[in-house]
């Protein structure tokens, strides 16, 4: 409801003020990410269709970036009336992006099938089974990764845990974290870098990043 409630922000946003756009992004990004990760239903030709959630992080980033890029174009900013909820407006753009991609994907798949004739019915069943197997593997991987992160977190000292709480969970800026912990901003950056390096190391140690050549 941010843009509905703050008229001044809406004016600045429509005028293309970068700070205003950053505020709008920070306010809506998480909600939109949840929406995309959960999946959604939509109606097409009188038929209700369901789109499963975006599973890969890289794809989630890609769709989020494309959605906000479209929504922040001048024409779209000026086209937003400020009378309806902006979150719903963003979800419509995101939904269209996903549905368009799926249609393009389906067209490409049809093209492949036409080029390699075969038993389409059994091919469809095999694909469904393969999708199910992939989905089960991803779920298993999420559970494994969750357990790994629990161990990772448990191995941190209390200061690092407090840092994770402020910076990652509460989403405070580095400057805010520095102020809360009464340390310099530079120190906060260093803490964050150390934490990320440790996370990387933990993932490598368990074989998660095997197969890619890392830093020496």
């Amino acid at each position: 409801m941010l843009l509905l409630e703050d008229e001044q922000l809406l004016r600045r946003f429509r005028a293309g003020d970068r700070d205003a756009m950053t505020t709008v992004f920070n306010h809506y990004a998480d909600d939109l990410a949840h929406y995309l990760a959960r999946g959604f239903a939509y109606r097409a030709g009188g038929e209700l269709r369901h789109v499963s959630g975006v599973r890969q992080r890289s794809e989630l980033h890609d769709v989020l970036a494309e959605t906000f890029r479209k929504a922040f174009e001048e024409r779209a900013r000026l086209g937003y009336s400020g009378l309806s909820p902006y979150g719903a407006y963003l979800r419509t753009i995101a939904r269209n992006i996903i549905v368009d991609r799926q249609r393009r994907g389906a067209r490409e798949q049809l093209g492949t099938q036409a080029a390699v004739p075969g038993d389409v019915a059994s091919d469809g069943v095999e694909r469904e089974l393969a999708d199910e197997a992939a989905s089960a593997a991803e779920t298993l991987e999420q559970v494994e990764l969750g357990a790994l992160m629990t161990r990772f977190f448990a191995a941190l000292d209390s200061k690092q845990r407090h840092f994770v709480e402020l910076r990652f969970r509460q989403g405070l800026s580095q400057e805010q974290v520095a102020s809360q912990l009464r340390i310099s901003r530079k120190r906060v950056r260093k803490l964050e870098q150390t934490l990320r390096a440790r996370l990387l190391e933990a993932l490598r140690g368990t074989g998660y990043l095997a197969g890619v050549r890392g830093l020496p």
Partner: protein
Amino acid sequence: MTSPRPLQGPACSHWASLERAYVAADAAALAELAPHLERCAVCRRAYDVLFDAESMLVTSEHALGATTEPTDAARAAAPDRLLGPLEKSLLLHQILPDATPQRDAMDAVGRWRRPLVSWLAGAATIALLAAMLLHYGVGSRGRGGQRSDGMQSRGAGGSSEPAALPDVGLRPLCIASARQDADAAAAPQRARVRALGTQPLAGEPPRCTTRDLLGFAAFNHGDRPVYLTLVVATGDHTRVAKLLYPADDAPAEPLAAARDNIALAVAQPLAALGAGRVDIVGVFTRRELTAAERQRLRRAVERRSDLADPALFAPSVGAARFFRAAVIIGE
């Protein structure tokens, strides 16, 4: 508990850059690698694992379940977060590339020092402008940021930004193949290479023959790798543009920093382009262009559209430097 499944597939040299950018929380460097992720399943998979793991620090039933519960105030401030701080700055950089680096730079200094930093930045800008005016001369630049050496630069917002990608350039070469030379008894038994120069706009474009091959050597005297995309447009009337480098759907190798005379894997037979004028357009960017951006560039060259149009590339491309040259192909 089963053991985690290791990633399959060959090693990828880009992953080291990705790791560095991740550990340093360098949103700009990560954004530059986004086009590579589109093509490289190995890096994409590892990227997904990395950010999935980090998101568990954010959503954290997994990681924070074992520690103190967050306060109500914290819950109210961040009721249902999914994206980590690096993910947000990465996305912001992709959406508003001009905004985030500047903000990060200002955040990096204490409040009390900001007026001093602003003053110094202003003074540095004036000094830089003065140096540029002295170097290039006030009246020497053509329309739209065009320079006498055929280079033209562009900022993310379409503005001219000559200092953004300095010290990069391209030398088109007219190559007479060894086989053709061998056919002619009097010709030397080695490839003749004529550099076409980088100042074709100053006068008559140089001439090659239809027996020649068109090749390129690039240089990157800067301290960071750059990517090059090359388009050639043929015929004054037909104006058909072709993506010369990288080949369609092929990943481009970055031009390494501090290198001169980098030979590109391009040898275009000029006979295939036909006699007449050929326009060459190269664009240097910090990140590799996506397939869609390459096609938009090709169409823009075909239509002679404005190459500084911000809609040509996604904002995350940042600054781009264009190179233009022309060659006359004779019989």
